[in-house]
């Protein structure tokens, strides 16, 4: 990998220990992925925020580097483990709360925007077409590449942090031109957001860096997010190209049989004790749609809704949150269905959700059963 004089000097430690470590990360990542050089990026989105996932080692590391490290470009942040306004309501232990607050504090000290959201593409302005960014949240990286005309690899918590501190990223794989060698042919009729989530999950297993996908019509925002969330969960793939692709591409069908296989893998329960919506977190458009769908109805059991704080504040002003709370919803910001410590297998046997990403982590990390249903079905079955 070719480095500029300035980059070499930082790598040698001539510009301080923090920059030296950040450049070591970029060089190690770049060499591992055959990058030829580093290029500027304009926006970093970091993962590694939830104490549930990074643990003591992560908390200690961030606390240590935050004394000196400062971000150089716009940097936003993934969800953490709880809603800061609601910490006391969920029976979390003191150690979790202390460590989570320390992590929050470290990122804020470094100059990171405390967005606590996995949908940066929906709550921040999108830079101009072709802009290089560095997104560590998988659904956000896939959305940025596939729907927002941005360029990013599926970054790790560490490469995105190094990019935030240096404003640079290794120039490799999806940042250059990419030509997928697989085309997935969508054959399932009348798809809903759950179908798209399963399609994404299937695509993530088939593809390497990117896939072509054909047979897709108009998708609403809920479906686009489900597609990206599903793909990010199952593999390393970070981009959809819509269309048939090169004629030489290997063709793989996604039909009812393939869909059933994904369903069987993730749907482990006939019914749930509670409902979760939002993984990826819900945006204002989905909150508005949900409010309308719930007019005159209310949930028969607990329903947790996850959205970014900014979305919750907007929804409050418009009056959506009142309506949703009337319908029995619990609205949580700063956190997400995915990897939440708020759902515990001691209290809950199974969760009903329309999210494939949520289902994967509820099953594998929280250890609870999962009952998959599209939103319309959830409203029909679980409200009166």
């Amino acid at each position, binding site marked *: 990998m070719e480095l500029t004089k300035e980059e070499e000097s930082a790598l040698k430690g001539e510009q301080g220990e923090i920059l030296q470590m950040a450049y*070591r990360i970029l060089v*190690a*990542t770049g*060499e591992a992925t055959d990058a030829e050089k580093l290029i500027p990026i304009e926006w970093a989105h970091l993962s590694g925020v939830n104490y549930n996932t990074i643990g003591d080692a992560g908390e200690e590391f961030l606390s240590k580097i935050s004394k000196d490290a400062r971000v150089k470009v716009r940097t936003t942040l993934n969800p953490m483990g709880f809603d800061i306004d609601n910490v006391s309501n969920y029976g979390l232990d003191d150690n979790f709360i202390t460590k989570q607050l320390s992590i929050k504090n470290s990122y804020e000290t470094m100059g990171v925007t405390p967005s606590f959201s996995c949908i940066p593409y929906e709550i921040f302005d999108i830079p101009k077409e072709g802009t290089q960014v560095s997104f560590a949240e998988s659904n956000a990286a896939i959305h940025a590449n596939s729907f927002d005309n941005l360029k990013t690899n599926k970054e790790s918590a560490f490469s995105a942090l190094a990019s935030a501190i240096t404003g640079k990223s290794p120039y490799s794989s999806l940042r250059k031109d990419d030509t997928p060698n697989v085309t997935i042919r969508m054959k399932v009729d009348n798809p809903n957001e759950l179908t798209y989530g399963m399609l994404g999950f299937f695509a993530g297993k088939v593809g390497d860096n990117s896939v072509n996908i054909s047979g897709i019509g108009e998708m609403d925002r809920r479906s686009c997010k489900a597609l990206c969330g599903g793909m990010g969960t199952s593999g390393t793939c970070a981009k959809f190209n819509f269309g048939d692709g090169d004629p030489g591409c290997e063709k793989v069908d996604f039909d009812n049989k393939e869909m059933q296989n994904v369903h069987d893998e993730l749907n482990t329960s006939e019914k749930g004790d509670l409902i979760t919506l939002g993984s990826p977190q819900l945006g204002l458009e989905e909150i508005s749609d949900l409010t309308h769908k719930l007019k005159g109805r209310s949930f028969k059991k607990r329903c947790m809704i996850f959205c970014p704080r900014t979305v919750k504040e907007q929804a409050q002003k418009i009056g959506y949150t009142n309506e949703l709370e009337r319908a029995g919803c619990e609205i949580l910001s700063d956190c997400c269905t995915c990897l939440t410590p708020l759902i515990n297998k001691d209290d809950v046997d199974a969760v009903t959700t329309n999210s494939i990403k949520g289902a994967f982590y509820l099953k594998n990390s929280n250890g609870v059963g999962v009952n998959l249903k599209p939103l319309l079905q959830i409203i029909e079955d679980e409200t009166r």
Partner: protein
Amino acid sequence: MKILVKGKARGTVLKSNDPINFLGTVDKKTGIISDKHHELYNKSIKDTILVFPSGVGSSVGAYTIYSVKSNESAPLAMVCQKADLTVATGCALANIPLVIINDDKFQSFQTGQQVSIDTESSDPITLLE
């Protein structure tokens, strides 16, 4: 041969043919491998030249490598057959030299050999008699 993290080291090879999951199976304080099914079960990676195929498992394992180093129980250098981002970023965080070698070279390593690593040299890994 690829240099992922630069540096110098001199020490004794500890080789594993099993990949290593740093998050789940390496004790952060002692560097001892706790997985009963692992070839290096009950052995410590502390102050070794650790030779193994690659890392596996969660990318959070990079933090484990950093912790092991902070607790002074880390290897002096790591040598892998395949570059994976968990070990690459972990060694970068902890400033542990990391070299990627080809299959033939990997086969030639044995536990107990004395080696010297200098990533700036034309021959970065040399066997010492």
